[in-house]
């Protein structure tokens, strides 16, 4: 899923402090699971903003809601008849949701309430780690199911580098060396021959480098 992190409340206050009415819109998708922008976080933020306005002596309206997904039109359309009541929306969805709201409600400022960080997994309750960079051309079959693009700090195709030490990355002792993990996994799988085969320069055109991406599945189109 997409992992996000709530923006510091002072940053959000700076965005909305002069407004009279604000809607805090959560998203029931990824950001709910990573506890950054679901209904719960929307309620907490809205409550905090109400208290902020209240103690500033301002009579501002702050409501909260949460949409099933902010990355699908039918769900964001649910705001169509409410949006006029608000000066702005603070969306707690990932960057995709924020932009989709902004596209639909072109005259309404839509502010991001979270920082969208990466595609990752839940390590344990309250801890999420990165796994995928969405390069558009998956090589996991050749790297023991561990992605060197997401998990090597230099996204090397033929690691580990000389800075790797005892399975840790040179940038931090907290960070596992992706290529060390790949080596160990390939060994477990009896595929160490893969490790010694040089990987050619990658085609990055399928990644963000090739420009904004689009996928069409014709059979699904109406």
């Amino acid at each position, binding site marked *: 899923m997409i992992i996000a992190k709530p923006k510091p409340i002072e940053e959000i206050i700076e965005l909305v402090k002069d407004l009279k009415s604000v809607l805090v819109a959560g998203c029931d998708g990824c950001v709910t699971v990573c506890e950054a922008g679901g209904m719960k976080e929307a309620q907490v933020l809205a409550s905090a903003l109400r208290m902020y306005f209240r103690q500033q002596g301002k009579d501002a309206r702050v409501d909260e809601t949460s949409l099933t997904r902010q990355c699908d039109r039918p769900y964001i359309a649910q705001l169509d008849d409410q949006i006029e009541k608000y000066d702005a929306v603070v969306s707690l969805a990932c960057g995709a949701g924020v932009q989709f709201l902004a596209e639909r409600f072109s005259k309404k400022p839509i502010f991001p309430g979270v920082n969208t960080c990466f595609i990752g997994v839940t390590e344990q309750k309250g801890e999420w780690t990165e796994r995928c960079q969405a390069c558009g051309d998956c090589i996991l079959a050749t790297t023991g199911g561990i992605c060197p693009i997401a998990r090597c700090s230099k996204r090397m195709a033929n690691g580990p580098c000389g800075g790797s030490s005892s399975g840790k990355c040179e940038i931090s002792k907290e960070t596992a060396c992706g290529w060390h993990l790949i080596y160990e996994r390939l060994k477990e799988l009896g595929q160490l021959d893969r490790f010694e085969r040089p990987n050619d*320069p*990658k*085609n*990055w*055109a399928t*990644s963000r*480098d*090739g*420009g904004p991406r689009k996928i069409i599945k014709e059979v699904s189109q109406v």
Partner: protein
Amino acid sequence: MSTNNSAKTPSKLQKIMDAGHFGVTSECGPPRGADGRIVEEKANLIGDYVDAINVTDNQTAVVRLCSLAACIRIKQMGFEPILQMVSRDRNRIGMQADILGAASFGIHNMLCLTGDHQSFGDHPTAVNVFDLDSTQLIQTVKMMRDEKKLLSGFEMKVAPEMFIGCAANPFADPFEIRVARLAKKIAAGAQFIQTQCIYNMDKFKLWMQQVVDRGLHEKAHIMAGLTPMKSLGMAKYMKNKVPGMDVPDSVIERLAGVPKDKQAEEGIKMCIEQIQELKEVEGVRGFHIMAIEWEEKVPEIVKGGGLYPRPKVD
């Protein structure tokens, strides 16, 4: 970052334009191989007729002999190079390092560009960097020069002294964005502007008028970009295939009106006429003649435009 756009540098091009003369530049595209003599041959064709020579940086995202090495060659020949730098291929570490390297060889002009997307070039599968964009590159060079600091804040004992340039396209749509974007680049610190090649004189004059209305021509030297048409085929290609290029029908018709073997001559004539006309346009402070793989014609154009001999400055 300070807002002083008139910072003096050892650049001859700057001194000439600051003294009120029209500046003249041309460009030299390095080869797609390691033969540095090609750069020298091209520079020799144009060197005495221009104040400074632009050296392109992997133009259209095609790998070529690097701009920095070619600039050093040109500098060592006694001509003045303009180091073009695109932010597509190197991050802020690499670019700052190259700027220092250029300065260490006495290179005092830079043209800061974002660069064409690599999908247009010969390595479409490459990663793109774009750590900075052209405006941020301008800010960076300015900070290095005026504050003697790297982007990290590290203070240098010897700082590069660059006359900072950038490009502007007066023709890309929508028109209204163009002057605003130029204003932004000048606010960032651009001191000279080389425009996209001009064919639509009316539209250029309209743009120039807006530039003058905002007083931008007093903050930076605007150099009109010109590329002589070699043939009717080239004109049609430029009109239909090159993004952001504005070639009016009148240009096509004029070239079509002369026999094929006279079209090149007509193209040169048109270019010279443009120079004459542009000299009268308020705010135009120089000419950037991009004779693509036709460098030998630059002397004729410069002379025909009444821009020769080039003024001498200290």
